[in-house]
């Protein structure tokens, strides 16, 4: 039981320090990498709290899709002559030390959780099945509202981005 607590505090420490480093970076790419580490640490905490489905969603949607969207925009805004040299400077090997250490700590914790058979998640977890039954039962209206929100965001993002892309194309031509 106390081991579980130690895993939680370690993940919390990684998450807090990675978040502080995210907010204090001056370089957007470096901040994004620390933010991804922070989200992975929070996903591990979800797993420890007995919410494996939320942990998977955190990694797939937050650390995956949303952060890739950020990365796309950061890379799009840096189109220019000196981009290649800048990328090389940004991705210098010593920049990877901090995120690498954090990610290694999280990987060790995850390996420990997977290999150790008796401590998987603490206490009584909530399985994806229960979440699904609740989600499409009493919360059906909320799901529909979320889908409308996502549709509105899709239309809005397309509208804003299309004008940008057209202007860029004219600049290039």
């Amino acid at each position, binding site marked *: 039981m106390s081991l579980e607590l130690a895993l939680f505090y370690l993940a919390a420490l990684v998450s807090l320090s990675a*978040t502080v480093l995210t907010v204090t970076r001056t370089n957007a790419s470096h901040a994004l990498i620390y933010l991804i580490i922070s989200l992975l640490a929070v996903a591990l905490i979800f797993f420890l709290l007995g919410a494996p*489905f939320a942990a998977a969603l955190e990694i797939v949607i937050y650390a995956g899709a949303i952060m890739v969207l950020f990365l796309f925009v950061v890379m799009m805004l840096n189109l220019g002559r000196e981009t290649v040299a800048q990328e090389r400077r940004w991705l210098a090997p010593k920049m990877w030390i901090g995120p690498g250490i954090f990610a290694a700590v999280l990987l060790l914790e995850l390996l420990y959780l997977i290999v150790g058979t008796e401590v998987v998640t603490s206490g009584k977890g*909530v399985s994806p099945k229960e979440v699904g039954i609740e989600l499409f039962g009493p919360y059906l209206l*909320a799901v529909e509202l979320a889908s409308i*929100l996502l549709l509105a965001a899709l239309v809005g993002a397309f509208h804003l981005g299309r004008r*940008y892309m057209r202007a860029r194309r004219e600049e290039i031509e």
Partner: protein
Amino acid sequence: MTAVSVPIEHVLVLAAALFTIGLVGVLVRRNVIFLLMSLEIMMNACGLAFIAAGARWAEADGQIMYMLILALAAAEVAVGLGLVLQLQRRFDNLDIDAASELAG
């Protein structure tokens, strides 16, 4: 009687700390990309609080609220990044104060 052995108070303190870091980021940084990242940190902290509450009573509702926050974060980022592209096009920098004129 708690369903989890991790004390909920500690998880809530962590969520509050993450939220505060995000809030400080929103207030201090002036680059729009960092502003959006800080907003993501704040929303993620809210999700952590919901998951902790759901785990405390072993109910699925916490995870459902987390999923709704996830949908909100995805929608916000899509529109926010579209606005970032517009800001870059119109003002040629990413300073949020450049867009404070609100004149037509």
